[in-house]
């Protein structure tokens, strides 16, 4: 599966709210594909990834 974009430093390009939400949901932000410009991970991406994960678990 596609992964989040990272900068050469290895830091995932994600907005702060998405990082926070991913942590709260126990998700690894680096696994979440970003839909924002330049692959930026946004809150919606974390939510839909979480839903997708949830439905896979079920």
């Amino acid at each position: 599966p596609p992964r989040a974009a990272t900068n050469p430093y290895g830091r995932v390009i994600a907005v702060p709210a998405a990082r926070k939400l991913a942590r709260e949901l126990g998700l690894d932000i680096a696994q979440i594909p970003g839909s924002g410009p330049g692959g930026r991970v946004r809150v919606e991406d974390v939510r839909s990834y979480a839903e997708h994960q949830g439905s896979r678990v079920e």
Partner: protein
Amino acid sequence: MSTVYDVIVIGTGPGGYHAAIRAAQLGKRVLAVEAEYVGGVCLNVGCIPTKALLHAAEELEGVKHGASFGLEVKDAKIDLKKLGSWRDGIVKRLTGGVSQLFKGNKVELKTGFAKFVGPKTIEVAGERIEGKTFIIATGSEPNTLPGFEVDQKDIVDSTGALRVEDKFPKRMLCIGGGAIGLEFAQVYKRMGAEVTVIEFMGQILPAADPETAGLLAKILTKQGIAIKTHTKGVKVERKKDGLHVTLEDVKTGKQEVIVVDKILVATGRRPRGKGLGLEAIGVKVDERGYIPTNEKMETNVPGIYAIGDVTRPPLLAHKAMKEGLVAAENAAGGNAVMDYQIPNVVYTSPEWAAVGLTEEEATQAGYKVKVGKFPLSASGRAMTLDATDGLIKLIGDAETDLLLGAHLVAPSASDLIAEMALAIEMGATVTDIGLTVHAHPTLSEGIMEAAENLHKQAIHIANR
């Protein structure tokens, strides 16, 4: 008449000079035509000279205000000749700079009033010039007000109000409580005049967020400026002891007379498209005189663009600039659209600034609105600046948490609003703003705290 320019820009205000330079940067052969002064209203008699006067007035006020922290000064005054030449020096540097930039970017400049004489031809000072595309950037001029005819002596518009070489009047009336009226009101007040501002609508800055506009009114009143809303000027009589102005409360019809020495008419501006020969080439002008365009800034006639004050409100320099860039990129064969948020600033001290939606606009647009606030009275930085009058107010969408708008009364609000404009352009959530580390002690921390307050987790205030 051999040269055919790729792009001809009519008017060199902020809209026009941005358009001309960008088109040239994109490799186009560009001519700019200017009837009066390079730089337009903004540089010559608008944004820039007003800010110069406001700064001087603020420094003068600072000298007095400084008593709170022990500053002791005797006989502070301003030499108006020096002030005038300082202000003019800035204008000269900037307009000279634009001319230099034209040269550096190979934009040709012609002086004279441009008029369309054919679909692809203008006439300037008797000369016919051809272009492939045109960008109309002819700006705006002050509205007139019946009964208050501007003579630039007793009754002035903003351009007349800038001329203060001899002395400031004792008593001043500003008709119009918009940005221009309020900025001059503060300058004149701080320079020693007794100032009254009247505004027809129910609040100063009628389109603004009522809470921050109301707060600004309260602060200006505290500074000694009399503000009368729901009030119009009816007539003026010149008598020995001054100008007797009849004011009317537009709700009750009650009239009163005030006596002043100078009147500023600042009741808005109107687009300047007359004499351009637009009819001849079929460019549509609406009933208010604006030249409508699509989002590419193109008028109903392909290849003819219109930007800035002449096309639509808000009449702001940075709106004109951005429209200029958009038009230039399209004229150069690109594909740009004007879909940006336009911040709005009033340069009084404290400043007022806003970007995005007000609470009311957001509610009407169907959002479930959440509001976060932070009063500057709780800001350590504001305390050390001796400037705790102010409020930071953020509007967020309860469902998506997106930032919808920001409304500020604060020192440096003009610069603080930049973060908010970027936030809206980036689609930032209120959480994003709250989580971003803001340096301590700063005024911008107040933005972070307002964001946190929206989520009821600000640190420095009770989160009601």
